[in-house]
């Protein structure tokens, strides 16, 4: 590598997090600590029905029996679960009829992020359910959706207003016994999104939630449940960015998707949480359990993610292909820079006949970061004619970073066809020079090349999200390679 390349990498590496600011909304939070009492308090604050409290307590008691997992290719200091505050809410929680009623301070926060709600409303036809520090404060377009019988609300509201649906599906894809972080989430989850698309309905707009973590030292435990009934279709967008912090913030979300016969769910994420400073200090720990069940015949679940943030990411959006002819897809771009660590990938579990899955993973590592892809393809004995195609590409920027691929195959039916391709490449000096010679700076040249490399994934994102994702990628790699 040439010296200009090295200095370009260092320059990029030294860029400070663009969205690092702290907003001043007064938080109303529980003192740090986790015990049964904490859980009863959370449930009481939220005015939950009995079944919910019982569920939380069962999860908590199970969690106590578990040990934090350490099989992922990531390293971090021990987390003291008793130093975390498990509930925090904006102080004023008025019932909002329109966007004008939103706390101006919150409005500002969104403006700074470039996600003005009016703009979203006006320009992109997106219903925004903004989750701000664990509690939903703004829900829009709900009425329009409810005309179609679509329920789109915060998880807390769903627990109160649609307990029968929540009861039926909660934990049916990710049981509270699933893993350490899922158990913890099941015990203490704060809020999140809920959507139910009734039979035969195609949701006319992208459903979207912007997450924002704010209060210091507050773990954020989102819970999301999406159900597409027979023949329904929904596209859901999740995007987030967090303020600069000096302490690590734990985030352990659970997302469950359920697609019944002939239903389709498209779930897209752009994740840009604070990754820590260039020494890795202060970033978010993102330990997420995301799973979708293609429960019905001909159903389809498609995960698309662009991951640029967090100090540590531990995340494997997966599909359980139960219904015959069901389809699971995973498209991922994971960028790591500086000291970031990402261990991410997917699981495709083929149970039904003629089930198909596609995995396209693009890992980009810069700085001293470590990027691991972990993918499991499992074909059960009864899954006749299952097919999988996996492609895992790694792109290295500089020579201090690492990329690792861990594919796991478990094939129990001889009719299965499984294909796996993997490549590792570097951005060539000659490519950069060629673009420089056309008048393009090294930074922009990297942006062009990296965006080109991720094209297959970006094309799966809804239009406005794709633009945002490209910007994010450029921001997170600014000055990164040469």
């Amino acid at each position, binding site marked *: 590598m040439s010296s200009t390349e090295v200095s370009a990498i260092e320059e990029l590496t030294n860029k400070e997090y663009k969205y690092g600011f702290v907003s001043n909304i007064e938080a109303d939070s529980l003192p740090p600590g986790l015990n049964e009492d904490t859980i009863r308090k959370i449930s009481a604050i939220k005015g939950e029905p009995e079944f919910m409290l019982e569920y939380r307590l069962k999860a908590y008691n199970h969690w106590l029996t578990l040990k934090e997992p350490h099989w992922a290719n990531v390293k971090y200091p021990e987390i003291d679960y008793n130093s975390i505050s498990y509930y925090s809410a904006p102080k004023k929680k008025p019932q909002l009829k329109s966007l004008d009623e939103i706390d101006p301070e919150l409005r500002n926060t969104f403006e700074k992020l470039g996600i003005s709600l009016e703009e979203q409303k006006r320009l992109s036809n997106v219903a925004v359910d903004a989750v701000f520090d664990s509690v939903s404060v703004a829900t829009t377009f709900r009425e329009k959706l409810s005309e179609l019988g679509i329920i789109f609300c915060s998880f807390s509201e769903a627990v109160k207003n649609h307990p029968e649906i929540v009861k039926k599906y909660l934990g049916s894809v990710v049981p509270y016994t699933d893993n350490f972080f899922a158990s913890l989430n099941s015990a203490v989850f704060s809020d999140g999104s809920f959507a139910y698309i009734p039979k035969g309905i195609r949701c006319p707009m992208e459903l979207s939630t912007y997450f924002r973590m704010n209060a210091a030292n507050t773990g954020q435990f989102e819970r999301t449940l999406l159900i597409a009934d027979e023949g329904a279709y929904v596209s859901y967008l999740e995007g987030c960015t967090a303020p600069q912090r000096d302490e690590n913030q734990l985030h352990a979300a659970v997302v469950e998707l359920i697609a019944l016969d002939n239903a389709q769910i498209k779930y897209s994420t752009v994740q840009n949480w604070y990754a820590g400073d260039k020494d890795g200090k202060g970033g978010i720990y993102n330990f997420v359990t995301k799973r979708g069940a293609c429960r019905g015949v001909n159903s389809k679940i498609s995960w698309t993610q662009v991951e640029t943030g967090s100090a540590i990411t531990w995340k494997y959006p997966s599909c359980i292909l139960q219904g015959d002819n069901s389809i699971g897809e995973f498209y991922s771009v994971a960028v790591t820079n500086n000291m970031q660590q990402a261990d991410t990938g997917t699981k495709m579990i083929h149970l039904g006949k003629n089930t198909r899955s596609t995995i396209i993973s693009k890992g980009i590592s810069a700085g001293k970061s470590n990027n691991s892809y972990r993918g499991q393809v499992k074909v059960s004995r009864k899954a006749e004619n299952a097919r999988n195609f996996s492609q895992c590409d790694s792109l290295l920027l500089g020579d201090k970073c690492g990329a690792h691929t861990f594919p796991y195959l478990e094939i129990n039916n001889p009719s299965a066809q499984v294909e796996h391709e993997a490549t590792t490449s570097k951005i060539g000096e000659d490519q950069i020079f060629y673009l420089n010679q*056309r008048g393009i700076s090294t930074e922009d040249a990297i942006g062009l090349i990296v965006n*080109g490399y991720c094209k297959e994934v970006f094309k799966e994102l809804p239009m406005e999200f794709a633009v945002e994702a490209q910007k994010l990628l450029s921001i997170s790699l600014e000055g990164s390679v040469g």
Partner: protein
Amino acid sequence: MMLEIKNLHVNVGGKEILKGIDLIVNAGEVHAIMGPNGSGKSTLAQTIAGKQDYEITKGQVLLEGKNLLELSPEDRAREGVFLAFQYPIELPGVSNTNLLKTALNEIRKYRGLEAIDTMEFLTLIKSKMKLVELEQSLLSRAVNEGFSGGEKKRNEIFQMAVLEPKLAILDETDSGLDIDALRIVANGVTKLKSKDNATIVVTHYQRLLDYIIPDFVHVLYNGRIVKSGGKDLALELEERGYDWLKEDKELIAG
């Protein structure tokens, strides 16, 4: 004076490749540089363009009096230097249009102009495509990826046509072109020629010079320009090869 090179010495990989080049190119002129393999033609072209890791031990390169050697490669391009690469680079996933729009806007920004309007850009692209008879399909494809050798060369000239440089350096753009493509490319270059720009063509074949008539022909030999002349020099080289110049040079050096 468009380009002035004074006593340029360049080391590559610790070895002296250019051993004192002097060259003056005026606006409106076409210069041809010929010379055997390994004599340093591409090294000279890439040095002007600002290739890293080329160590300039002595000498100067001025573009309209401005010291090019202290500018980054991108700033040289923005000043109006264009290099059609001998081996154009493949850029998987980066579309030709995207590259050109980014490049054009960077150059415009440098010159204090506003970003080009999308419609205007498309019109420009269309007209330049005609000029070099470029297939529409090559536009939306990734830059040079899977292009045939000749397509790559033609694409270089297309980029040049869009970016309208002051100084264009074509490094063996004629190699690998079929007869028709050669004529098209050469005609394109000729049409783009004006009293305000200049062209340096590096070539091994005199046939290109039937289409692009050079004002001067220089022979680069072992890192030095050993002979300069008019377009007849190219014919002479075609007939006699380079060996006779070797002796010439030894006479000069001796």
